């Protein structure tokens, strides 16, 4: 039927064009990709992932295993988009997947002839000889669903947190009834419906509710729900649960790119997300043109698409007859209905299908009972006939010509989201499928998701669930009464999972279409001892990947039970993992994508660094300048220039990232005595002290300086990367071990910017910049003294401390004046230096960072034995006496120099004695020192070898090869600290 003539509930008046595999096609507005391709006579839409078998569309929803497309043009391609869910837009470009070079001619389809070679577990047994690498390239090329996108450049996805009394999953009849009951009772309600329209199967089922057409009821219900403030999220699927929140994913038009993620905190949840129709296994049941019965009904009702002109229907329940009636009414020819149930079973189960059968027979439909489709016949272009036979005499088969074979083996309640909440499935004999076990305190299943497969039961089930959920949240208003209804009868299903087939043909009876799992695979797995359904899943790939058992999970379990000679409940269901359908990782990231991928912290001097050409890099969360572009084209060159400048003249750097913790209260000194290796309580007011803290196990945790501001107030600085950890460390002990002490801990990291002024000219420059009132302290302060005062009427602390070995001062100022102070220092002749230079300066002096204090070193290892005092008991100090801490195998911090001029070594290089292979230590830091004129470094070396003059080999096979180095004292430059004391 031409596009313009089609009539369907989802079609709009507009026309549009799209491209599929390079050819242009017409479509109607509202068409999905699968519907439009079917309307254009395209049945071959993809190839299977393993055997590359030709495949057509199987479903009309997100469960689709075959018709998955890559959408867009390289590099902006989104793979694995479900054709039945993708609503077309004018000009959209689609490409089929899993084929090369074309869909109709795929080179790798030769694999389909090798089914026995590529059976279950083939990858555990094959490709071993002569080497995996021989096969790796081609296997990787063939593996995977679609291809990974390039630079998708998707718009920022939206994440929204919602909370409500009752969340209703699904806006079919049961979901709408539940939402209405809950809203009427006074509950706040949110509905998530995966389709763009509400009503579920009412879209094509001829039904009446409360004496009026079901469409009118849906419309009136939605109107009332809006009036009651119910929030309806369409095209939003509940894909999983995490952290106690239900996660709904919204893909407008079925295409990632304008998607949203809702994180919903609901006090009660009504799961009314319907059911998933599953097929029956028969030979070549994956040919294009073999489709689920319900899908064909949906394509007809929604898009006016006739999936074939001559149909054969194959099912095990009554619904097949009502569907056939609708197909006939739409002008399609139904050649035959193949019902697996025998004549006697019809009468036992009620008379409706008998009556309908009679009517259909009169209309020319051949109704076969106790029969099965043994095989589909056809080729790449699709099914051409069905081979039909009595179940008890499969050899007595005959051929019925058809161009569409519609199959239905029953329905599995959509329990994915509910089971992910920790529930267990239980088998319902009534519907021959697994339902979710009850969770009465929170979740209430309703409708088809609860096994209610007829309209009247679904409505009453939904109403009751909505009322219960509302009551649970304390809403006790009148929820009204259940809507009465008439529609399709209960399907009266008798389980039938697969048609008879010789064992040799079982490899063409497909169970899981997405993963090419066949009955033969299941049999092989079981014969090889994989009996548990979880083992079967992993060995055969049944229900793995994005499918997660939606299509083949129940069918696979049932056939596995048959092969094992046991029951379906005994085999059980494999774990259904989230998400329910594919969700782009970008959707989950929300605003944290691209340049905003992770949190960044900025110092008050961030803009000033950018102004002066600072090359900012992430150091932990902080953005810090590594070097300034004016000093060299790269970090190495600029770093050397900046370090040289500091040693010969002076420079400034931004140390605002240092953690700063203010400790206050009458017992603050005593508290700090417990937190550090040396005593804080003995620090005089106006003095500071270098302090080292230990972990509980005696390893060095961090170092820093502690300033005593007043009798009862201290400021402790921490390493940049240790700020939050040290704060937590302090707070933990304050709140637990010493909860009674009169001491408080406050993070003041952001309250104080820190500018380091270092170099021989630092004092003179500061004199100029700070003014005459700071002259006295500038000259009076000795190393580790500090003074507090005002600059530009804002607080300033001048600390005489050095991390460069030069005469240096730290200016602790309020953030608002930091940029002013920074610019004033630059105008006075001091240039900024970055982390690269800072590293050179500190390695030259043997100062430590987390490279050395790496959590595995003790104070003795780091040459801090002098700090270990017997009169101070602090966290970790008791463990310092452990014998192992003093063993000769412990490392010791040493300096390293190159033996041969012009060679170098890098951090991470392993150190060995020249003729040995076993490492005796490793390089923690290394730099090219402009002051020394060679590469120097720091290392942790076994004590027995940590003697000056020992020659070692720095082995670095992946980078710079081997370098001979000599052990030296850690302090490479100005060992007498004369410059620091200037």
């Amino acid at each position, binding site marked *: 039927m031409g596009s313009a003539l089609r009539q369907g509930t989802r079609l709009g008046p507009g026309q549009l064009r799209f491209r599929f595999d390079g050819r242009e096609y017409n479509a109607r507005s509202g068409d999905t990709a699968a519907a439009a391709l079917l309307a254009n006579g395209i049945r071959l839409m993809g190839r299977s992932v393993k055997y590359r078998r030709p495949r057509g569309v199987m479903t009309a929803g997100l469960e689709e295993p075959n018709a998955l497309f890559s959408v867009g043009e390289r590099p902006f391609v989104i793979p694995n988009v479900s054709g039945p869910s993708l609503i077309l837009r004018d000009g959209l470009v689609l490409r089929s997947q899993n084929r090369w070079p074309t869909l109709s001619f795929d080179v790798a389809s030769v694999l389909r002839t090798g089914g026995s070679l590529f059976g279950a577990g083939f990858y555990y047994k094959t490709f071993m000889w002569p080497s995996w690498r021989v096969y790796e390239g081609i296997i990787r090329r063939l593996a995977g669903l679609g291809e990974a996108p390039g630079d998708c450049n998707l718009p920022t996805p939206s994440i*929204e947190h919602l909370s409500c009394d009752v969340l209703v999953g699904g806006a079919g009849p049961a979901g709408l009834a539940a939402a209405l009951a809950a809203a009427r009772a006074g509950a706040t309600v949110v509905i998530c419906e995966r389709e763009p329209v509400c009503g579920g199967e009412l879209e094509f089922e001829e039904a009446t509710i409360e004496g009026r057409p079901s469409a009118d009821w849906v419309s009136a219900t939605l109107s009332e729900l809006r009036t009651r403030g119910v929030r309806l999220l369409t095209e939003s699927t509940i894909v999983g649960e995490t952290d106690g929140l239900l996660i709904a994913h919204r893909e407008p038009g079925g295409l990632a790119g304008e998607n949203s993620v809702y994180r919903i905190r609901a006090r009660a949840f009504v799961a009314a997300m319907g059911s998933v129709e599953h097929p029956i296994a028969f030979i070549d049941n994956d040919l294009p043109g073999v489709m689920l019965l319900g899908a064909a009904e949906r394509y007809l009702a929604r898009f006016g698409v006739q999936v074939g002109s001559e149909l054969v229907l194959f099912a095990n329940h009554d619904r097949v007859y009502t569907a056939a009636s609708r197909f006939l009414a739409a002008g399609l020819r139904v050649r035959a209905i193949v019902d697996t149930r025998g004549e006697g079973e019809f009468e036992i189960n009620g008379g409706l299908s008998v009556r309908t059968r009679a009517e259909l027979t009169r209309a020319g439909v051949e109704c076969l009972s106790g029969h099965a489709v043994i095989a589909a016949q056809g080729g790449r272009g699709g099914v051409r006939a069905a081979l039909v036979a009595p179940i008890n005499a499969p050899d007595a088969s005959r051929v019925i010509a058809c161009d569409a074979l519609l199959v239905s083996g029953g329905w599995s309640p959509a329990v994915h989201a509910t089971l992910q909440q920790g529930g267990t499935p239980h088998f319902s004999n009534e519907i021959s499928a697994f339902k979710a076990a009850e969770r009465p305190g929170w979740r209430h299943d309703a409708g088809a998701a609860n096994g209610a497969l007829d309209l009247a039961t679904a409505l009453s089930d939904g109403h009751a669930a909505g009322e219960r959920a509302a009551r649970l949240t304390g809403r006790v208003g009148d929820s009204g009464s259940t809507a009465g209804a008439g529609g399709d009868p209960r399907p009266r299903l008798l389980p039938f999972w697969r048609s008879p087939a010789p064992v040799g043909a079982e490899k063409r009876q497909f169970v899981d279409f997405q993963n090419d799992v066949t009955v033969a695979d299941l049999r092989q797995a079981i014969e090889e001892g994989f009996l548990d359904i979880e083992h079967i899943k992993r060995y055969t790939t049944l229900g793995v990947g994005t499918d997660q058992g939606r299509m083949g999970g129940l069918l696979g379990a049932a056939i596995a039970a048959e092969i094992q000679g046991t029951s379906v409940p005994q085999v059980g269901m494999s774990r259904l993992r989230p998400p329910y359908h594919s969700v782009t990782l970008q959707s989950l990231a929300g*605003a944290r994508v691209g340049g905003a991928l992770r949190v960044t912290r*900025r110092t008050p001097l961030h803009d000033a660094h950018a102004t002066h050409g600072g090359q900012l890099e992430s150091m932990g969360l902080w953005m810090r300048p590594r070097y300034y572009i004016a000093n060299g084209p790269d970090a190495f060159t600029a770093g050397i220039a900046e370090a040289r400048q500091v040693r010969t003249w002076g420079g400034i750097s931004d140390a605002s990232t240092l953690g700063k913790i*203010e400790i206050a*209260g009458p017992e603050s000194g005593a508290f700090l005595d417990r937190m550090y290796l040396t005593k804080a309580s003995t620090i005089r007011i106006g003095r500071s002290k270098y302090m080292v803290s230990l972990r509980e196990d005696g390893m060095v945790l961090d170092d820093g300086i502690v300033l005593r501001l007043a009798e009862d107030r201290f400021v402790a600085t921490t390493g940049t990367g240790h700020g939050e950890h040290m704060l937590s460390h302090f707070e933990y002990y304050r709140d637990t071990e010493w909860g009674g002490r009169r001491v*408080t801990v406050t*993070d003041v990291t952001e309250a104080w*910017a820190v500018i380091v002024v270092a170099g021989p000219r630092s004092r003179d420059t500061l004199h100029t910049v700070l003014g005459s009132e700071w002259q006295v302290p500038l000259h009076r302060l000795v190393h580790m003294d500090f003074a507090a005062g005002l600059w530009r009427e804002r607080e300033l602390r001048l600390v005489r401390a050095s991390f460069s070995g030069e005469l240096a001062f730290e200016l602790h100022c309020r953030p*608002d004046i930091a940029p002013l102070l920074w610019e004033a220092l630059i105008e006075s002749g001091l240039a900024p230096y970055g982390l690269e230079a800072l590293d050179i300066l500190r390695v030259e002096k043997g100062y430590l960072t987390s490279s050395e204090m790496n959590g595995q070193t003790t104070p003795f290892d780091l040459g801090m034995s002098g700090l270990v005092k017997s009169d101070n008991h602090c966290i970790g100090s008791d463990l310092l006496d452990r014998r192992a801490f003093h063993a000769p195998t412990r490392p010791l911090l040493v300096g390293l120099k190159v033996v041969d001029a012009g060679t170098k070594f890098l951090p991470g290089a392993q150190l060995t004695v020249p003729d040995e292979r076993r490492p005796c230590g490793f390089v923690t830091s290394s730099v090219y020192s402009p002051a020394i004129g060679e590469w120097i470094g720091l290392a942790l070396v076994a004590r027995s070898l940590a003697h000056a003059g020992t020659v070692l080999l720095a082995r670095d096979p992946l980078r710079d090869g081997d370098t001979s180095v000599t052990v030296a004292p850690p302090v490479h430059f100005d060992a007498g600290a004369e410059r620091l004391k200037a």
Partner: protein
Amino acid sequence: MTSAQAQRKVGELHIAWRALEHAVEFRAYAFPGATWPTGFPITPGSVLRAPLGRFALLHFAPGRWLAPEPAEEAALLDSAVAAGTGTQTGVGGKWQAITLTGAQAPRALAATIDLETVLSGRDCAAVRLFDCPGIVARTVEGFEVWALSSYATDLIQCLKRPILGKSALPVT
């Protein structure tokens, strides 16, 4: 970002921010278990408001208070210190006050927290907004967020993104 008053309008979201140059934090030695001056917001999550609605003292976590711009309440803090209940620390520059107004203000915050739950039964709450530490409180026109200064630029960019992006807004 400077400490000067700044303002951006993004769709129906108005974001204004300013550094708090004179903020003070008060920490209790023990909580609960002390005698507090009259008017002190003792319940965690409660807020003391100045007569014109200004946020005077936020009890943002048990035993921890923030006076964003201390005025009259400074005397209250002094009396608490004098009573030996805790200490106060000047944290000028530590916090940025971010004011969110406009119809999209709830939506901007809902991108990172469940506002209804977080502020249920309390006036303010210490939260992580897009992984940035902060305190949030509801105002007549929208919300006030106090963010640690080093995170503020990042946070403001994140708050704007859900509105700036092409993401379809929810169907209501």
